[in-house]
């Protein structure tokens, strides 16, 4: 069961993750964001242990694949305008597009995994800030610097509330 982990303290905001994702998937599933306070960060899917997005989806269109990635199945999704999954995601990682069901999310590069490769953003981050890590490796990545930087990011995604909702994997 592997997930994506970004150490925000190592991120320099170079946007490589987003543009590599864009090249591979046409519509990026990791988004570089800048707050009005001038804080820059890539928003990404954590493939949570108990994901809100899957729980609120009435179609059951977001499911876990054999490698642990939460994937959106476009054939089940009907692109409902309530956008429950988008609203439910505590990490702002469900993204709207202008194609098909008009929603997309990270699937940890499912097609690439099928060919023995990993997520493209992990390969190409110049700073080594992104890891495709097993649950057992996450503790080592959770350094005090990483935690402090993550807290800054979360304060912007969820102003006024502490970490709540979905439990990260």
């Amino acid at each position, binding site marked *: 069961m592997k997930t994506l982990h970004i150490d925000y303290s190592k991120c320099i905001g170079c*946007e490589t993750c987003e543009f590599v994702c864009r090249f591979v998937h046409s519509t990026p599933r990791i988004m570089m964001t800048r707050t009005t*306070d*001038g*804080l*820059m960060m890539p928003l990404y899917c954590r493939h949570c242990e108990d994901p809100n997005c899957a729980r609120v989806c009435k179609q059951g269109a977001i499911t876990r694949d054999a490698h642990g990635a939460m994937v959106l199945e476009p054939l089940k999704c009907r692109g409902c305008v309530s956008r429950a999954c988008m609203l439910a995601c505590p990490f702002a990682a469900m993204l709207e597009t202008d194609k098909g069901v008009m929603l997309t999310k990270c699937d940890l590069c499912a097609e690439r995994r099928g060919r023995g490769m990993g997520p493209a953003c992990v390969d190409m981050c110049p700073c*080594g800030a992104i890891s495709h890590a097993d649950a057992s490796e996450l503790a080592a990545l959770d350094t005090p610097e990483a935690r402090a930087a993550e807290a800054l990011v979360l304060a912007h995604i969820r102003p006024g509330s502490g970490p709540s909702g979905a439990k990260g994997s």
Partner: protein
Amino acid sequence: MPAMNFNFLCPGPAAPAGRSVGIIGAGPSGLAAAGHLSCLGYQVEVYDKLPKPGGLMLFGIPGHRIPRQRIADATRRMEREHGVVFHPQTKICCSAPMFEEEGDHFCREVLGLKDLVMRHDASIICTGSWKSRRMGIEGEGLAGVYSGLEFLFPIRAARYASAKVKTPEVKGKDVIVVGAGHSAVDAAHGAVGLGAASVTMLYRRTAREAPCGSYEIERLKEMGVVWRELATPLKVLGSESAESLEARIGGEVETLPAQAVIAAIGEIATPPFAKELGLEEVRKGEVHWLHMTAIENVFVAGDALTGPSKIGKAIYSGLKAARSLANWLDLKAQNRLAEYAYDDLVAKDERFRK
């Protein structure tokens, strides 16, 4: 730390395709293009003026941000597993006079563009943006006034033991950095590291608008850097070398002591043969084929095309140019170029128009 993987588009070495491509510039866009094309089985040769591939990821951005080893291991993998040939310290001859930009110190060999074009089936120019923008104020020519690159490049390059590169002397000096982009932050950081007596940053707008982001500014303040916003430099004062800087800060004119002034206010693209290659038309999208220059088998990508950007954009541009080049060679090999109504398609591509 694992290496970067410019060959991220293939799981392993590809079967030889019998095509040869030359890439000028081993920065983010050149390496991304080289990675993509070597994954298609092309024989890729990369030419760069610097002693190591990596461009400004290695020679501009400090190692605490981009680990040196992560880049070095990535280019070694390109060589060993994908047969990419690197020609370091090789400059492809420019239309502008030589030895005028940072990083020229290392060149041992100078090739003409024609040699290169003849040698390969196609080439991509990924030379980046190396010329520094100037402040355009009085006293800018004094000793002790640097551009961001003039200041940062030698700090990283000095370790390659070139007698021509000297680390800037700022120990015990009052240093003023103008600008608030990433290179301004790195210059301020570098000045602190080199033992400057004081480091002050001047920015014309506020921290909320700073291109480097407010997080970086907070971190610099923690290191003792003085942050002054809504500040415009007016004049560098001094007899032979810089002694102080006159600036308008929030409406008031102040004179700040400064034995070193670093104007990190951006770079300008310096592609070779900009006119001959019709790069202005490429920028506007008035071209026959995506990323193709006026010479039909010469492509262009990265900051050389768009002007200074971020690593991500440069990589994306390199990947797109590589894809475009491969598609073009395919169609050419089938003798089918004539049937492709490319003029319209390119002109309609909004993303390409920037």
